[in-house]
């Protein structure tokens, strides 16, 4: 089967420091990939590159097949002036997801009863959960998640890892950056960054 996403001969730098030299990675359907490494080894930079957010023309050969992608970045992309529901509504409209799942997604991440409150009154962890609710809104083929397990509680971690495992078994690919081990009972491919340079 052709890879969902592959990158070859990638040379990336940040602030004049070389992060990757001749880096290659290929991600196929039904794979869970963890990008691990210490702080500053370029996990987020690589994920942003894979998501197509950084052009870095000529940095490497990025080949992506036609598939729906869900990217959850370091920044939550949650507007504090809008309620959680309004935040997700715009997201659904933008990505063509059905708005019917918004309430159930918010309930899943433990924000039942908070749908209509102004997001600025939510705690940092709850804001993170609004961002995380996107994962439950619709099915994507490729998930690119930046530190999805930080600042959520044990129940949230269990819920998210169960959902991601289910998606991987259904043929999607998941790429997570994380320094902690990811609590899943499916095969996990660990890509250690920061050793090649």
């Amino acid at each position: 089967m052709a890879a969902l996403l592959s990158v070859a001969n990638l040379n990336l730098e940040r602030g004049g420091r070389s992060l990757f030299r001749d880096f290659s990675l290929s991600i196929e359907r039904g794979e869970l990939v963890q990008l691990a490494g210490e702080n500053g080894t370029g996990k987020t930079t690589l994920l942003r590159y894979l998501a197509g957010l950084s052009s870095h023309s000529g940095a490497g050969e990025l080949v992506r097949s036609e598939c729906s992608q869900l990217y959850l970045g370091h920044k939550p992309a949650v507007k504090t002036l809008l309620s959680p529901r309004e935040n997700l509504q715009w997201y659904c409209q933008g990505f063509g997801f059905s708005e019917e799942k918004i309430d159930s997604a918010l309930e899943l991440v433990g924000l039942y009863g908070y749908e209509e409150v102004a997001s600025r009154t939510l705690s940092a962890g709850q804001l993170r959960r609004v961002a995380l609710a996107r994962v439950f809104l619709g099915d994507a083929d490729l998930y690119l998640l930046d530190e999805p397990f930080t600042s959520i509680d044990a129940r949230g971690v269990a819920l998210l890892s169960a959902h991601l495992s289910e998606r991987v078994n259904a043929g999607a690919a998941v790429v997570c950056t994380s320094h902690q081990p990811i609590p899943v009972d499916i095969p996990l491919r660990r890509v250690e960054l920061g050793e090649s340079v």
Partner: protein
Amino acid sequence: MSLATGLLRRQLLLAARRPAQVLSPLIFFAMVVMLFPLGLGPDPRQLAEFAPGVFWIIALLSTLMAAEDMFRSDYEDGSLEQLVLMPSPLFISCLVYAFAHWLLTGLPLLLMAPLFALMLQMPTSALGVLLVSLMLGTAVLSLVSSIGAALTVSVRRGGVLLSLLVLPLYVPVLIFGSGAVAAAADGLSAQAHLLILAGMLSLAVALAPFACAAGVRISVDAG
């Protein structure tokens, strides 16, 4: 089109939750208009002579004031990243941003213009031309500002840079906008000025969204 209407609804909702930000350019405009008679003296003839130029310069500055924040919060909280990744073309979203900016700065100005014109002793015969020129001109200003705002959003304190980038592009609008009003105030035909303004608007609508989209991509890349 559902993204475009959804995005417009979101922009207006955000503005409604932060009314001070929408009102401040308008209040700035009103204050400056009130200062002119104090500085120039209350002679109606003298005021009327300067009125078209004064009017347009303040319109320009109040548009610029609001332009800096066009993409700012979306850049800081990461919404701009999601916008770039959305499947629909980015230039349509950029057009929506510029349109929302016009609805929140150009349109209120247009509605208040008769009052401000009266305060500057502008002849009422020029009012029609003033409104038409403002409608065309402020729309061009919003579109041009969207390019500058997209390019400078990743720069810390990019306000000065934004002014340097877009003020030269504002100049033609200033010349033909105030020219139209001055011509009408003198009882001459303003048709040529208005047609040139309409031409500039067509050009801006056709080109600015693409330049703005490129700017957004560069800024998101840098962040």
